[in-house]
């Protein structure tokens, strides 16, 4: 927002060299993959029963995970940004940990918590809830890795805008819940939307935690990334076709958010 002015002032020319290399580094592998797509078989490859099951499961679980990220992440962000208590910085660091953890570690951690022999697994089993090898496990893995993206983006926005508007609203007699709903959240709406999109994208791409924690069964736990990983063993054409589907979905989401946040900003 500030930088759009800076570009008119002129950028140092050398900046473009690493920028172009960086861009190529990301775009070229994707383009290289597109050259390997067997377009003649493409429709058949992506509409096979296994592919459809995987895509539907991926979209369904990622949406639920994004919903959970919203329900849990927004309160977490508000508490971290606004509440004052000891150990807040430590708590923030812990909450953001899944960002830096390799997903397979997240999967192992979830397994030892919610697995049949995990910390809570036994109590859950007694209560009749079985998480292992269920779609619930997929959603949990996705939420675990995606939640920090929402928290970090909303919390940073809250801290940037400060508390002025909230103070004014409170002075005018608005109770805290009204302030939260009518002032705080609208102010950070663009950050909230981009946080939700990041969470959704992360959930959609989730692989390591899912395969470690949830297993892999068509229609139940085998999401699109797991299907790609499996197909790659025997049918690279199918793996590439499904990868293209995943890329298209990701691009659509990014386009959608640009549209949304462009309107709200």
């Amino acid at each position, binding site marked *: 927002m500030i930088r759009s002015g800076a570009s008119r002032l002129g950028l140092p020319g050398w900046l473009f060299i690493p920028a172009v290399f960086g861009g190529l580094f990301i775009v070229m592998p994707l383009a290289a993959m597109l050259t390997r797509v067997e377009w003649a078989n493409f429709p058949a490859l992506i509409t096979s029963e296994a592919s459809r099951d995987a895509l539907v499961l991926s979209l369904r679980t990622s949406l639920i995970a994004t919903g959970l990220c919203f329900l849990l992440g927004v309160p977490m962000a508000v508490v971290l940004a606004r509440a004052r208590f000891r150990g807040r910085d430590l708590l923030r660091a812990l909450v953001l940990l899944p*960002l*830096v953890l390799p997903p397979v570690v997240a999967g192992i951690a979830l397994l030892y918590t919610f697995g049949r022999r995990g910390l809570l697994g036994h109590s859950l089993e007694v209560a009749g809830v079985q998480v*292992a*090898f269920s779609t619930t496990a997929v959603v949990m893995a996705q939420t675990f890795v995606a939640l920090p993206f929402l928290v*970090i983006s909303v919390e940073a926005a809250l*801290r940037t805008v400060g508390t002025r508007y909230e103070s004014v609203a409170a002075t005018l007699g608005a109770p805290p819940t009204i302030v939260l709903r009518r002032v705080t959240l609208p102010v950070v709406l663009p950050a909230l939307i981009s946080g939700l999109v990041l969470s959704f994208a992360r959930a959609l791409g989730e692989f390591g935690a899912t395969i470690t924690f949830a297993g892999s069964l068509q229609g139940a*736990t085998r999401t699109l990334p797991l299907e790609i990983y*499996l197909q*790659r063993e*025997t049918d690279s054409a199918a793996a590439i076709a499904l990868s293209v589907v995943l890329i298209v979905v990701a691009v659509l989401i990014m386009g959608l958010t640009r549209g949304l946040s462009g309107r709200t900003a």
Partner: protein
Amino acid sequence: MTTNTRALVGACAMLALASCGSSEEAASTPPASRLTVFAASSLRSTFTELGKKFEAEHPGTSVRFNFAGSADLVSQLQQGAPGDVFASADAANMDKAAADKLLAGSATAFATNSMIIAVPPNNPAHITTFADLAKPGVEVVICAPTVPCGAATKKVESNTGVTLAPVSEESSVVDVRNKVATGEADAGVVYVTEAMGSAGKVVGIAIAGKLNVTNRYPIAVTTSSHSPRLAADFQAFVLGTNGQQVLAEAGFGPA
């Protein structure tokens, strides 16, 4: 916004580092001669041991390994990855490599592996036979039919006439073993060597010999090898008395 960006950059850098650590690189100073062996995941512990013995017999030689699924190894070789020797977990993948003219000589079978039922040490579902795996309420994990161990499992199913309803079909036999070892699954179908190499974390229950399936492991020297002589030496070493003994101790059958 700066803290946000900085945290994200830091996170990405750490992820990049974490994902780099998996390749098994040799020391930076190359010794007199170096051999790179591409071997199936199920050969990890035996071949690591064989590599050390081979190095001891050939002073100045360093053997490094690339362990992965056999299909992965073939595609890596197809893409020009430098490997002197290729040891596959099944004939199908070796045939693929041969069809792509990646092999210098002919492939020789050096070991066999068969399937076994793996259960947690306390055997919570009281499994005693393959048919028990199909009982209601038993959570069974197997390999996906598209990978070699899953194809073998499917054959055992047809030999025994028992149809399994697994709760998960994993991409690798190691994942099956781990799901059993952690108690997530009541039982799994794995390679005999996988159960024997688990250090007691899973217990094996034999499948009757005539109903079982045997995979042949072939080994070959690649066309891209920089030291084909040394590669042939390694192949001979695996097929020799020393090699066969190490393989037999790990539960592999004679070829």
